[in-house]
Structures are given as C-alpha cells and as structure tokens.
C-alpha cells in the first residue's frame, strides 16, 4: 500500500472526467462576453424565480391618480398609463419570459428530438415523411408560423408556449436527424448491433447521449429566440393576455406615451435585448467548450 502511495505518477494523475470538466470551465470562462452573458443570465433567472419577493408592488395594482409617473424613490422606474409600477411589471415579466422560453423549448426539443431520431434511425419513408413536414414548417418564418398557430389556438400564456414550441420543432428535428445519420455509422453503434442490442437500446444508450452536446447548445440559443418571438407576439397583441405583464406588451403599451415618457418602452425592450444577448453568449460559450467543431453549424 505504502508503495502505491509513493508513486506520484499514479496518484497525482486526475481522473479523465475531472480533467475534461476543468477544460470545459477554462474554455467556457475564457471569453469576456461569455462571462458577461453568464452574469446577465444568472441575474435574469434569479429575478424570475424570486420575483414575488423582490418586486416592490403588485404588478397589476392600478393607481389611476399616479399614472405615467417619472422615476422616483417611490417608483424606481416610474409608473405606466394605469399607474402600475414599471419595475414590478418588469420583474414579473421576467418570470413570464423565462417560463415561455423554457416550456416552448421543452416542447420543441422533445418532439423535434423524437421526430429527428425516428427519421435518422429508420431512414427511407419515415425519413421522407418527417423531413417533408419539417421542410414545410421551415418554409414559414418562425414568427409567422407562431402567429398562425397562436391565432389558431387563441392567445394566452399556454397557447403562446405551444405555438412557439411547435414553430421551433423543425430546427431540432433537422439537427437530430443529421446527428443520428452520422452517429448510426459509428463503431460503437455497430458494436451494439453485433452484440444483439435492441434498436430501442441502441437509440437510447448509444445515439441519444452522444447527440446531447449540439442539442444543449441549440436549446440555449433558441431560448433567446423564443423570448424574442414571444415579445413580438405580445407586441402584436396575440401573446400573453393582459393584464399579465409581458415585456413585448409593455413595449407596445409604452409606445403611445413615447413623447412624454419614452422610458416606458425603452426599459422592457432593453431587458429583452439583454436576456436574448445573454442566452446567445452562453450558447456560444457552451459550443466552444463542448465541441468547437460545431462552430459555424449551430
């Protein structure tokens, strides 16, 4: 035993997984913009989670005697046309944005991954049918597709999440299909087949885990797109139903008071931009840290 302890080559060698983790951390935090994005993201997520604790007022409480107030110690960002506290609405709006982003992405990633997995794994007519549907959905601009679906279902939080989720399925299906088709030819899948693994086992144990890195990158980047699209829908009046606070609707509400109080539109728009920027930067950082070969493809 003592001899083993004295052999530094063996003992000081860190496990490969630890080394990989360290490399990931080093690459991820090596770019200033990525760190900045990460900080913004943490602030955004914490604000969304602890919103009710930090918001100074109820976001829907109206005070018609104090409408369109300028920023003051009482209302740090002023009040809107109904006398509601802008800061509180901004904080609650973060909750809505995060919820829409995460749930829409959950729907898109789940359905897209299954469809892509099927199309890539089984090929032939399964691939042809799934990919034609994907092509069809892709020929629509995402915002227009989400608009049509949201119009079809009627606005509201739940329907917006479904609309955006469906509108983003094609990106996942296409990425997953491409990944599966290349992974299918790999040695370990061949090895799995040769020892008699079932198709299900190969898909779940060999192919799926190996396609996670690019998928994680796409999910991170697409949450930003989902938040941006939700804001667009709410701006058009097809998104989250008032009076629930939504950043897009806040920009639209403020537009009418542009001359007297430009902050009302400026602040929520800036919040949308910073959050989308944060998700994109973190996505960029994850891509570089997980697999630099993905540069230019995602």
């Amino acid at each position, binding site marked *: 035993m003592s001899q083993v302890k004295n052999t530094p080559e063996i003992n000081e060698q860190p496990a490969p997984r630890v080394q990989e983790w360290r490399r990931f951390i080093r690459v991820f935090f090596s770019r200033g913009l990525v760190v900045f994005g990460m900080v913004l993201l943490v602030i955004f997520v914490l604000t969304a989670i602890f919103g009710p604790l930090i918001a100074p007022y109820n976001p829907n409480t109206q005070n018609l005697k104090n409408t369109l107030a300028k920023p003051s110690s009482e209302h740090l960002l002023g009040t809107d046309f109904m006398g509601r506290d802008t800061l509180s609405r901004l904080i609650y709006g973060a909750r809505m944005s995060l919820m829409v982003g995460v749930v829409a992405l959950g729907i898109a990633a789940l359905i897209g991954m299954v469809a892509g997995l099927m199309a890539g794994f089984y090929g032939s007519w399964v691939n042809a049918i799934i990919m034609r549907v994907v092509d069809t959905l892709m020929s629509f601009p995402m915002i227009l597709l989400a*608009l049509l*679906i949201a119009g079809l279902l009627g606005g509201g939080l739940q329907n917006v999440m479904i609309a955006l989720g469906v509108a983003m399925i094609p990106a996942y299906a296409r990425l997953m299909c491409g990944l599966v088709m290349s992974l299918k030819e790999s040695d370990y899948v061949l090895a799995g087949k040769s020892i008699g693994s079932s198709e299900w086992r190969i898909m779940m144990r060999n192919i799926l885990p190996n396609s996670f890195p690019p998928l994680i990158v796409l999910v991170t980047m697409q949450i930003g797109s989902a938040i941006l699209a939700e804001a*667009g829908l709410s701006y058009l009046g097809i998104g989250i139903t008032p009076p629930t606070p939504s950043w897009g609707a806040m920009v639209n509400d403020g537009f009418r008071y542009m001359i007297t109080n430009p902050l009302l539109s400026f602040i929520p728009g800036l919040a949308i931009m910073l959050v989308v920027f944060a998700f994109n930067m973190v996505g960029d950082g994850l891509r570089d840290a997980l697999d630099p070969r993905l540069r230019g493809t995602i």
Partner: protein
Amino acid sequence: MLTYIVRRLIQSVIVVILVTILVFVGMRLLPGDPIYMLLNPNQLQNMTAEELDKLRQEAGLDRPMAVQYFEWIGNVLRGDLGRSIMTKSPVVDDLAKRIPVTAHLGIVAFIVGTMIGIPLGIISAIRRGTWLDTLVTTMANIGITVPTFWLGIMLIWLFAIYLNWLPVMGYTSPFVDFWLSTKRLIMPVFCLAIFPIAANARQARSSMLEILRQDYIRTAWSKGLRERAVIGRHALKNSLIPIVTLAGMGISGIVGGSVLIEQVFNIPGMGRLAIDSLFQHDYTYVQGITLIMTIVIVTSNLVVDLSYGWLDPRVRYN
C-alpha cells in the same frame, strides 16, 4: 443539372401545396365563426339560425372542407385568390396594391443587409484582433438580439420625435414622391436589415477566417500577390457558399420581420394585412398572403441551392 432542377422544383411545389393545406385546414379550425364578425351585435341578436346559415352558404363556408379546398386551389391556378369574407372585394386586387409595398421594403432591406453585412464580416476577418474586428463582432452580436419592433420605436423616438429629422411613420410610393418615399423608408429598412446585416457579418467573418487558413491562400501570399488579389480573387469566392446560404435564408427572416415592422411603422403592406385578416378570421386573405409568402421563400431557397454550382464547381447535383 436539369434533373436536379426538375426534382427540386417538384419538391418546392409539394412544400407549397402542403403549406396551403395546413393553412386552409388550420384557419377553419380557428375558434370563432367569421360570419359573426360580419355582423354587429344588434344584427346578430335579430338574426335567426336560418338566416345565419344562409349567410354561411353564400360565403361557401357550409360545404365540406375538402370541396372548399379544391375549389380554392383550382381558382388559384387560374389566378383568382377568392373574395374577402368581410368586404367581398377580390383578394387579388388588394394584394396587387400591398405586394409592391412589402416588396419595396423587403428588397431594399435585403440589399442593405447583404451589401453592408458581408463586407463588414470580411473586413473584420482580414483585420482580426484589431479594434475594428471587436467593434464589428460586438455590433453583430447586438444586431442579432435586438427586438426589431422595439428598435423601430426607439428610432421613431430619436429621429422623428426628438431630432425631427425623419417622418414618424407611413409609406409613400417612390413613383409619387421619391424623396419622401426614401425618407419614410430609412427607419423601417434599417429595422428589417439589422438582423441580416448582423447575421451576414458573423457568417462572412467566420467563413473568411476558415478560408484564410487554407494552404492555397498561403501559396497566394508566398507568390507575393497583393492583398487585393489574395482576398478578392482567391479567398472571396470560396468563402461565399455559406454566406449565400445565410443571405438566402435571410429572405425568410425579412418576410417574417415585415409583419412586425409594418405594424410599427403603419405601412400598408402584406404583413399588416396578414395580422388584420388573422384577427378578423378572414380566411381568404390569410390563405392568399401565406401562399404568396411561401412561394417567395421557397423560390429563394431554390435559387440559393442552384447558385452553389456556380460558386463552387466541386458541387455536383445528384
């Protein structure tokens, strides 16, 4: 090559047909009966069920969906997109007025997005690591994240309200008053072009950096060629493929973006019409607009695919 073109054409037609079916069925599953939209609440109260059925029959909404679809697609092939359920006016007439407006806006935005974005990306790649590169990369990162409708509002505030340099909103045809038309177009075009500018710059930069690492570029340098020859003749054409793909895909973004921007700037184009008719459940309009938008996008994708061969002779169409 010809076989490839024919196959891609057939694929494109299938996509367009699938879109029309999806929209046609989708619109009819919308909650709310368009007949109710035609009537004010007073009229609605006085109407009997039979009278409502008669109205529905007149609008052709009582027949099976498949019959309605085939009749519509048959008419489309003859150049008739149907009549508005609300106003009874032919959809083609209204679209003929709206399409040039959106096309004007979209084409200018596309040209601006390509002409500014690609050179910015290339310059940034050539001058990698300099302040110019940092500036372009940062601006491009901001450009792909900015909500365009918000940018529009901020521009209106700054240039139309605060500085009073540009008209607030609206649209004037360039054939009526070219100068006013251009002034009115500046802000919406910038908003529509900001994403393509940023995305093209990013793609052009990474694509150019990739090419600049290739052996043949090193050879060109070692031959003593000037920078203009190395970049212009050897690097540029080879870096164009991914750029062209992205620029082509940008058309889809511009078509989608026009929906929001026309709303912000009160421009009477197709995007605005799409929103209005979606809210009013005016089926025929939504179908007509989505058909035209899909054809534009599918055609641009086709042109992008076919341009690969010209840009890179190694690409063979199989």
